[in-house]
Structure formats: structure tokens, C-alpha cells
């Protein structure tokens, strides 16, 4: 009985996990693939030629998406890491309020904030700008960084840091050689979250970027709503590549470190 359940679950996971992704490889090489053919009747590299050409703007979108996601992740670490540490390891007045403030954007829909920020950014000339898009992406990213890292810091003992300090290590050396190795796997997962949240943003970028800052989802969108599935599939695969890379880098931490994902239980 238990064995049957296990086998069925494994089969379902296998089929369901891959079914929406693998056919896109085939689609991206198809020129003619009409119903009811199970495989394309004419193969071609045309979708890839198109995607790699400057007219598709895929290259531009990729560069923008990547640089925005990297900047947003670095900024999230910069402001989120100290905040997470303070929330996990220090007691101070107003802590509950601060915790609540930082978690609200995860739960409360950001639609009003995005529209409101758009109005403010128009006046500050931050619309249509790289930095404006980065700022609006920070809204969902900072809370996730703080959420994951405060859970990591909560399971992190500071004794080693004290020992290092007694032995004469300066603040930078303590961080570099004691703190960072201690929190590294958690930080990797948290950074994966912020990177992917920024990487997948659509409507916020459309609104704040105003069509000047073109990102990958904006290039992909019209092909999915249209009927050019070959181009949609090729762009999808480019869009998904960094995500898969990130998963391979972090999957060990994701599965094994209960502290990292367990943070979600404390929300």
C-alpha cells in the first residue's frame, strides 16, 4: 500500500513537473506543428535566430532583467541583513511593530502601493528609469530577505563571534570569517528569492519602467497572448535558464536546511 502510494506520487511528480517545460524545447525548434501531429512536421532554428537577433529585443531584455535583479538583490542584502539580525538577536522597544511593518508587503497586495509610487515617481522623474524600477522591485524583495534571514539568525549562536573578538578580530574580520560562513547557505536561499522575485516582475516594471526599461517578461508577454508559440517557447527557455541555474545552486540548502524554509512558518 505505502509502496504503491510512493510509486504513484513519484510518477505524478515526474510527469507534472516536466510536462509544462519539456514541450517548450520542441516548440522552440518547430516551424510547422499543427494539430494533430505529435511532433513538428517541419523543424527549424528560426525561432532561435529571431530571439538572438537585435530586433526581438531579447538581449536587451535579458541584460536589463539581470542587472535589475542583481542590483535589487544586493540592495536587499545590504538593508535586509542587519534588520534580520537585529530582529532575531536583539531586544528593543518597538520590535513587534518593526517586525509587522517589514512583513506587511508580503501579505497586503502591493497594487495600491505600486500605483501610488508611480504618481510620486512621475514627480521625482524616477519613472522610465533603471533606479525607479529597482526601487519598486525592492518592495516585495526586502520583506522576503528579512523573513528568511531572521529565521536563519534565530538559529545562529553568537558565541563564535565573541570568541573571535576576544582573539582580536576586527568587525570586518568577524563578519568575513565567522558570521558569513555561518549564515551563508541561508543567505544563498534568501538571495535566490529576491533575485527570482525581481526577475519575474511584470506589471510593476511596465508601470514604473513606462516601456523605456524593457525586461524579459515584457518581451515574452505578447508572444504568449499571441499565437506565435515557437517564439514564446524560445524566449521562455531563455527566461527560465537563470532560474534553473539558481535552483541547482541552492536546492541542497532548500531541501536540507529546515531553518531556512521554516521561517515561513513564523509569519
Amino acid at each position, binding site marked *: 500500500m505505502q509502496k504503491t502510494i510512493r510509486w504513484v506520487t513519484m510518477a505524478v511528480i515526474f510527469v507534472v513537473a516536466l510536462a509544462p517545460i519539456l514541450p517548450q524545447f520542441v516548440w522552440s525548434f518547430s516551424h510547422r506543428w499543427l494539430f494533430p501531429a505529435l511532433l513538428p512536421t517541419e523543424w527549424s532554428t528560426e525561432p532561435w535566430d529571431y530571439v538572438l537577433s537585435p530586433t526581438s529585443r531579447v538581449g536587451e531584455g535579458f541584460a536589463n532583467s539581470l542587472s535589475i535583479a542583481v542590483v535589487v538583490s544586493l540592495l536587499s542584502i545590504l538593508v*535586509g541583513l542587519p534588520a534580520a539580525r537585529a530582529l532575531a538577536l536583539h531586544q528593543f522597544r518597538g*520590535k513587534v511593530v518593526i517586525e509587522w511593518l517589514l512583513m506587511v508587503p508580503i*501579505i497586503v497586495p502591493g497594487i495600491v502601493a505600486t*500605483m501610488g509610487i508611480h*504618481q510620486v515617481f512621475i514627480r521625482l522623474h524616477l519613472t522610465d528609469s533603471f533606479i525607479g524600477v529597482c526601487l519598486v522591485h525592492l518592495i516585495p524583495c526586502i520583506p522576503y530577505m528579512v523573513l528568511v534571514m531572521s529565521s536563519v539568525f534565530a538559529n545562529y549562536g553568537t558565541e563564535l563571534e565573541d570568541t573571535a573578538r576576544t582573539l582580536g578580530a576586527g568587525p570586518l574580520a568577524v563578519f568575513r570569517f565567522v558570521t558569513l560562513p555561518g549564515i551563508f547557505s541561508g543567505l544563498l536561499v534568501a538571495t535566490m528569492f529576491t533575485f527570482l522575485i525581481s526577475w519575474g516582475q511584470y506589471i510593476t516594471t511596465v508601470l514604473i519602467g513606462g516601456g523605456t526599461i524593457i525586461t524579459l517578461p515584457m518581451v515574452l508577454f505578447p508572444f504568449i497572448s499571441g499565437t506565435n508559440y515557437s517564439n514564446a517557447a524560445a524566449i521562455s527557455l531563455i527566461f527560465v535558464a537563470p532560474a*534553473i541555474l539558481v535552483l541547482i545552486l541552492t*536546492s541542497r540548502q532548500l531541501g536540507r536546511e529546515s531553518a*531556512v524554509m*521554516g521561517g515561513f512558518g513564523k509569519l
Partner: protein
Amino acid sequence: MRWLSLMEKIRAPLMVFPAVALIVLLFFGGLVVGLGQSLGYFPAIDSFELTFRYYGEVLSDNTFFESLWQTFRLALLSTVMSSILAIAIALVLRNTFRGSRFFTFLFQLSIPIPHLVAAAGIVLLVSQSGIIARAAYAAGLIDAPRDFPVMVFDRAGTAIQLTYLWKEVPFIGIVVLAILQGIGPQYEEIARTLGANAWQRFRYVLLPLIMPGVLSTSIIVFAYVFASYEIPLLLGVRHPTTLPVLAFQSYQDPDLSLRPQAMAMSIILTLIAVVLLVAYKRLARYAVNT
């Protein structure tokens, strides 16, 4: 000495300050501006009066309520189904068996994949000329694409829900799995020696332990689906569409005078989401503890 204790006192507030400042300015600042605009304070079109007129206009429109129902239905169904499936799969995957690591990896596969890519994949699968329809034709189950059930652009939002399920089941599942692996088998063994059967061990031992994780992640999923824009726009019917689509469309209209209405609609959407989530949290706590 006094200097040192002062430093100690302001250290933690200093550490949280940059994050809090950014969130307060961007999120709450945006919220306040949006609230003002929904109440008619909109300097760009020389409107400074404070009025509930726009709320009245939104609430007297039938389209709004149809969209609200559609939004709520989609969010509720995807959240409930994702949670149940996630718990079931996590219960299987928590055991170590041959291939369990590989299948746990496969299970996580969709977590980093963007929603748009998931949507594209689902369309290619379940549209009337999609892979599944072709397989059904090959198996002799249908004669033409029109015999295949409509799952994209349908009123029920099948493709939308499938996209969310594909994305969110692993997200909830991986959190539940992390908690289950942290618990270990001791509690269940004690329950077993006390004579609890499999259902009782799940209901009274495991469920209360994993519930906080299920609760938080399902709240995140509900909030996300309730407010998401591009998936219902891509895979759903035009009428009734979801509230975020409706709101963003009137917001992006070249006619700026529609913006206060769009804001009013978004404020109502936000309020409903918050009320639903608070109620859900209370209810789930109550249900688990009794």
C-alpha cells in the same frame, strides 16, 4: 561608559532603520498617495476635494462585483487545492527511499520558474490544440480540437488554476517538508504506542505541527493570487476578468480621470484581502486547536 550604553541602545534600531525606511517610504508612502487619490485628491488633474464619489461609482458597477467574485473564487480554489496537494506530497517525500532526493529536487523544479513561463507551458499543454488534446486524438478519444474541453479563456479559469497549482504546490510543499523533517518520527511513535491509528496520528500529531507553515504559506499564496495581474490577463476570459486586471486597465487608460476609480477599486481589493486573511488566520487557528 554612558557612551557605550547609549551605543548599545541605538544599535538595533540603527540596524533596522534602512530596511524600515525603504518599506515605509515605498510601500506605505505609495499606499497613502493611493488612498488620497481614491478620495479625490489628485493634483495632476486639479482635483483637491475629498469625496467618496469614486467608491460609490465602483460599488454601483456590476462588473466590479462579478470580477470580485471571479478573483475570490480563483484565489480560494487555488489556495485550498495547493495546500491539500502540498501536504499529501510532503507526507510521501519526507521518508527517505531510493530516489527520494531526486524526486524532491524535481518537486522543487517549478519554484524558481517565472509565472509567465508556467503560463506558456500550461497553454501549450491544455489548449484545444495542445499536447494533451493531440494525445487524446492519437488515442482515439476525440476527433477534432473542438471536442476537447475548453480550458483556456474559459469562465472557470482552468488554465489559470493549473498554472497556480503548478507553481504553488511545491512552494507550500517544500515548507511543509522542511517542518516534517525537523520534527522527526518520535512524536508519531509515541502516538502509535498509545494506540493512535494513521489518521489520528496525522490529524492530532502532524497536522498541528505543520499547520503554522501551511497557514503562512497559504496566506502568501492567497494574497499573491488575489492580487496577481498577468496570469488572468493572459489565460482568462475578458469578462468577468479579475479585479487587479480591471484596476490596472483603468489605471493605464489614457483618460487620467479614470485613475481615482482605479485607486478606489484597488483600495477595496486590498481591504477585502486583508479582512479575508485575518479571518482565515483566526478560523484556521480555531479549527486546529479544537
